[in-house]
């Protein structure tokens, strides 16, 4: 097996329809829809849950690759990545159940692979910065909002399920914070590159400008500051993320 593998080797059953993120967003915009599901309808809710399902699957695959790709990394790094694989596999099962709960099916919405591409970073420090801190941090924001909306909808199944998943995501971000520091100790340039990679992901995944600083009732997706602090983000890092949302790209 190659270390790492090419991103186009990601294997899927036929039922999955894969498209470029930009093409999906454009197709939505052409129809007057927001590029990221706004949860205003049942279909939009299923779209969001399906997006998270494939995201969890790619996170599992990415963490699995981190177990394989870095045989010379510290053993405890591998152990953390293996734990993450297990967690993500349970998250996939959770979201399969939630999709079923909402009457959807696997493959109902296109799968984009931007997340997986980020998980193909060649440097372990960049990978944990980008995936564990950038993408799993984003998951904290998205899940926090989903819990809030499920509570408002009176859907305890979604509310409780996502709350359990959120607890794991905080742990994964914390792992990322730990390993970003440990793997780059004494190597300022490697650390700079890893953080730069994470910043690029934070900017790319601002969800069409929906992720913002503010309360759930006021902004579409609120930055989950408390969850992020629990996960090891500093106030300065959170402030930097808030600023990045103010200059967000569309996708």
């Amino acid at each position, binding site marked *: 097996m190659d270390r790492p593998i090419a991103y186009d080797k990601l294997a899927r059953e036929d039922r999955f329809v894969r498209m470029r993120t930009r093409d999906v967003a454009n197709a939505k915009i052409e129809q007057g829809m927001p590029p990221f599901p706004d949860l205003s309808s049942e279909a939009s809710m299923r779209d969001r849950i399906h997006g998270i399902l494939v995201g969890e699957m790619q996170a599992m695959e990415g963490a699995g*690759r981190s177990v394989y790709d870095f045989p010379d990394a510290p053993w405890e790094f591998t152990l953390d990545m293996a734990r993450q694989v297990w967690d993500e596999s349970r998250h996939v099962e959770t979201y399969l159940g939630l999709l079923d709960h909402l009457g959807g099916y696997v493959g109902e919405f296109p799968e984009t692979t931007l997340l997986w591409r980020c998980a193909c970073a060649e440097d372990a420090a960049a990978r944990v910065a980008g995936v564990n801190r950038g993408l799993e941090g984003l998951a904290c924001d998205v899940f926090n909002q989903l819990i809030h909306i499920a509570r408002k909808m009176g859907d305890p199944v979604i509310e409780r399920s996502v709350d359990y998943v959120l607890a794991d995501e905080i742990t994964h971000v914390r792992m990322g914070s730990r390993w970003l520091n440990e793997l780059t100790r004494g190597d300022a340039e490697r650390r700079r590159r890893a953080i730069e990679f994470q910043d690029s992901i934070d900017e790319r995944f601002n969800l069409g400008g929906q992720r913002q600083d503010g309360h759930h009732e006021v902004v579409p997706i609120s930055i989950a500051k408390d969850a992020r602090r629990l996960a090891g983000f500093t106030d300065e890092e959170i402030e930097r993320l808030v600023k990045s949302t103010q200059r967000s790209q569309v996708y």
Partner: protein
Amino acid sequence: MRILGGWIALTPEVDAKLLFGRHVWDCAQHADLWGKRLPELRAAAQVSEPGGPAVVAAFDLIETAERPEQTVERVTAIYRVVKPHLATVYERHLAVANPVYEPPTRRILLRCIEEERRHAAAGALVLERLFARDRASADRARLWERKLLDALGAARGVTGDVELPLVAEPATPPERASVAQDLVTPPSGFDVEAALGDLAAPLAAHRAALARGELAAVRGELGGEAPPEAVVEYARLVPPFERVEVVGVARIGRQRVVKLALAGPRGRQVLQERWTPTEAGWRIVTVEVTDSTS
């Protein structure tokens, strides 16, 4: 553990993918327990080395099964060969481990035996599902198992000193309930007609035209906004096709992205088309041939 982790992304079937995902963490914990036990026995912690070059060769052989269509080989390698072999080696070690001096080792062995046997039983059930989808794959599995056991036999097992047989059946099979915790039910299929809605009828005609190789008629269904590349994509198809099956239907608002598997004498191709409803009926706006003839 490392091989399973690396294979998750290379394995299409969701249930097999999740089986690997479940077991990576158990395998990591086993390795961690052994790695921590080492310094207690006056060796370096968390440092391992293969039992010899033939062991390396056997595991290199296992790793070669990395193509998407080789899930049966992957599951066979780990769940019919490696894990039953490890459990066998552990059981033999336990049988001679002194109960007074070696309880720390015995405890690790007991846990590893129980979990490896449980994993193997779960893998056997996933393998049965895979065989049900492709009957011929059972023969492939048997051949691959034999080949791997030969390679492992040449190495005299993972430790380089294992007596035959390399794999012994468990004295007591794992309980079904404990095995079930490792399995995820494969996602159910979807209702193609319901997913297509009123696109079903025009798509049926479209599929028939594709099967007959009437690509001019197919191109006529392209919408005005379809890019010129769409025509080029259709030119990559190699008709005629004996079967044109709908294997995927995704929605983007009112649009549908339909994935068709086309099987013909020249091989299998996958065609992905995005359809949009217009006043003149459904039209294709993007086309992609995502796979090619072998």
